[in-house]
């Protein structure tokens, strides 16, 4: 049996569904499907949007009807299981884990009965999959964090999370690419620009890539272009 179904999502959109629950196992499958479809049907597609368990295809219905496109998609994906696993690139993101930029480090530690050092060690020990990019330009949903770090979102979201904040919610982790309201636990900050308009690729990661967080010192953070928060932000516990 095929590991996916194609649903109609509108007169110009199809949804390929690979499963119903979040699992890292689907990440290479969906990345492989996305790469194949882009290669085979690229110029006919307006958008190809991967997420945790799905891949949406937006196209010009005047070139191919919904039924015709569904047929093409099924043809292209026919041998998906047989293809070699597409695992994406491995990207390292440096992080300065510190209370001054990660005001929820202690909350995460307390919730999981760990020390702050253990939280840092565990967060940077595993390889994460990029499940999807959404919510805001360049906001990459990554998982899964070790079960020992799983921490619920804040009861009240912060009105403004600073750019570059490395965050944790349940077993997912992310970096805020722009300043935006947000309810995830902040545990550090990266000097890496997660949405760089000046760069052709725009985002250093794409869905299906793998990510490892590398702890860096304050000096390294500053040397790599990281910015320090205003003193007032720190005093108010990250302006919660």
């Amino acid at each position: 049996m095929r590991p996916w179904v194609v649903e109609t999502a509108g007169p110009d959109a199809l949804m390929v569904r690979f499963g119903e629950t979040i699992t890292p196992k689907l990440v290479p499958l969906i990345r492989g499907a996305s790469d194949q479809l882009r290669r085979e049907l690229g110029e006919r597609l307006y958008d190809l949007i991967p997420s945790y368990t799905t891949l949406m295809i937006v196209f010009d219905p005047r070139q191919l009807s919904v039924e015709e496109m569904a047929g093409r998609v099924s043809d292209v994906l026919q041998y998906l299981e047989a293809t070699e696993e597409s695992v994406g690139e491995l990207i390292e993101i440096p992080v300065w884990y510190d209370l001054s930029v990660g005001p929820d480090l202690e909350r995460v530690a307390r919730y999981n009965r760990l020390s702050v050092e253990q939280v840092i060690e565990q967060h940077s020990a595993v390889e994460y999959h990029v499940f999807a990019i959404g919510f805001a330009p360049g906001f990459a949903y990554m998982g899964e964090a070790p079960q020992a770090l799983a921490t619920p979102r804040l009861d009240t979201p912060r009105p403004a999370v600073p750019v570059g904040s490395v965050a944790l919610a349940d077993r997912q982790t992310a970096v805020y690419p722009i300043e935006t309201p947000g309810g995830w636990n902040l545990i550090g900050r990266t000097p890496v620009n997660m949405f760089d308009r000046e760069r052709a690729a725009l985002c250093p990661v794409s869905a299906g890539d793998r990510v490892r967080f590398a702890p860096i010192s304050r000096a390294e953070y500053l040397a790599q272009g990281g910015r320090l928060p205003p003193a007032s932000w720190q005093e108010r516990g990250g302006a919660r």
Partner: protein
Amino acid sequence: MSVCGLRVIKPGPLTLLQDRGRFGYQHLGLSPGGAADEHAFLWANRLLGNASNAPALEITLGGLSLAVERSLQIALTGADLRASVNGRSLKPWRTHTLAAGDRLQFGYASDGVRGYLAVRGGFEVALCFGSVATVTREKMGGLDGVGSPLQAGDELACPEMGLVAERSVPSRFIPDYRQPLTLRLMASEHKGWFSAAALERLYRSEYRLSPRSDRMGARLEGEAVESLVGGIVSEPVPFGAVQVPPDGVPIVLLKDRQTIGGYPKLGTVHPLDAFALAQRQPGCPIRFAPVTVENCAEQYNEFQGFMDGVRVS
């Protein structure tokens, strides 16, 4: 060659440069954006013989005031915003020729929400990721490329082009935005989110458009539709998707929607109805009716072909 054609004296509550949207960046989280009511937007360009995607102004509710810097031809479509030039009123759904020194002013919408102003040849604006579509939340597009709405003092460049014969939209194509609206729905093929009974209840209910609606989505008020699940694994959302948050009251997602969402979906609204929805004022009665994807696609293709000036075979 382009020179300043129009200078903004007063921007009104929300005037945005728009085209048909930003394609090819949704996988990086960029909302497609674009003209909220593509029907009126496309008519404005068609009247002037422009490319269908030529940048135009989306004037929300009115209040805009412009100085005309040199003679040019414009088209007004969409909501009747009581436009006038030097005190003489201008009818929407037709072209007008303006002279240097004229003052183009908009009052406020009597019906509808968004008026469109196109110029012959289209406004000349640098593209931001392939589009001028203004998405303020994401700091994308617009005159400055970082999503700002028009501001007093902004100068809008227009190409120097010959005029076309004055034209107007035949009355049978002009919608009445005061009419109650039925949204034709392509029901979701995912069977696990809503019972057949819940869908039946949706089709029987009458909703009202909530004042909390915006370019991201149209919120409704009325009977709740119970979902079999609280949330779903976040997935991409198409234009016109009808999502149901835990309170059970549907939201129709429009042009500035987020790229992925975690609420179960009843289905997708016919795009032509979603455009019409963007012109309804709060309180307007809204109903749902089923449509097949084949029916919807046929009509949508015909509409797009007509607006692109391509004969549909």
